């Protein structure tokens, strides 16, 4: 199944590896920060509701 990359195996695999790692990292960081911010804002608004109410 693996294509025959010959003497270019390092160049091709490194390119795909770096790309997939960078994109996975970007997606993970974005998701984690989104979740953290949503939770923090909900907590802050709930606290403010208690004060206002």
């Amino acid at each position, binding site marked *: *199944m693996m*294509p*025959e*990359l*010959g*003497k*270019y*195996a*390092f*160049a*091709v695999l*490194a*390119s*795909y590896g*770096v*790309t997939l790692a*960078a*994109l996975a*990292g*970007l*997606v993970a*960081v*974005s*998701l984690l*920060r*989104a979740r953290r*911010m*949503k939770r*923090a*804002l909900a907590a*802050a*608004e709930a606290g*403010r509701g208690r004060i206002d109410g």
Partner: protein
Amino acid sequence: MSIWEYANPKKFIATAGAVLPIVAPLAALVLAVGLIWGFFFTPDDYKQGATVKIMFIHVPAAMMAINVWGMMLVTSLVWLVRRHHVSALAARAAAPIGMTFTLIALATGAFWGQPMWGTWWEWDPRLTSFLILLLFYLGYMALWEAVENPDTAADLTALLCIVGSVFAGLSRYAVKFWNQGLHQDSTILKVGEKDPLDPAYYVPLVVCIIGFVLLFVALVLLRTVTEIRARRLAVLQARERLG
């Protein structure tokens, strides 16, 4: 119905919440199809051998590196002219994505260049303008972090974005302007012309480009919503501190 409705943060968050569950899986699917097609099911090039497979990530990443800056330019101008906060926050949200695409383009270009040109790096017009674009992305992100007042930060980063657009444009047209160096001109728009890209490469490349665009749309929506929430949280915390 006007596009300016989406300048309302609540409307933007609601719309992003409806669009994201469609765009995000679609991006993953199209990107997976394109990359698997490009990596496993394309023939070796008669000159470049298996390194031609790098094209399926290098070209979309490089295109997006420039186009994301273009999107940031448009949203920055909207901020400067109409003072819509969502617009400035969308530009801020897009910058790390564009920076990642630029890094990918530079890294895969180096991996491709070494066996084909005999060097990892050359001070070629396109490569150099891409490196400068990366520095602009880093500077843009640093400026947002460095300025405490968010509106002042939005103003200054918008100006930096306008200046950086010169280099984003140069990155795209450097090969045409100087007509020298190692990097070739684009072949993807040469369909129907002499020496076009073979359909065996062209079709999966287009799939990969669509995948990168969808990934960007999904990420920029998610990250803009996060920036809107971060801004709202900062306002609430400031009010709390004041009493």
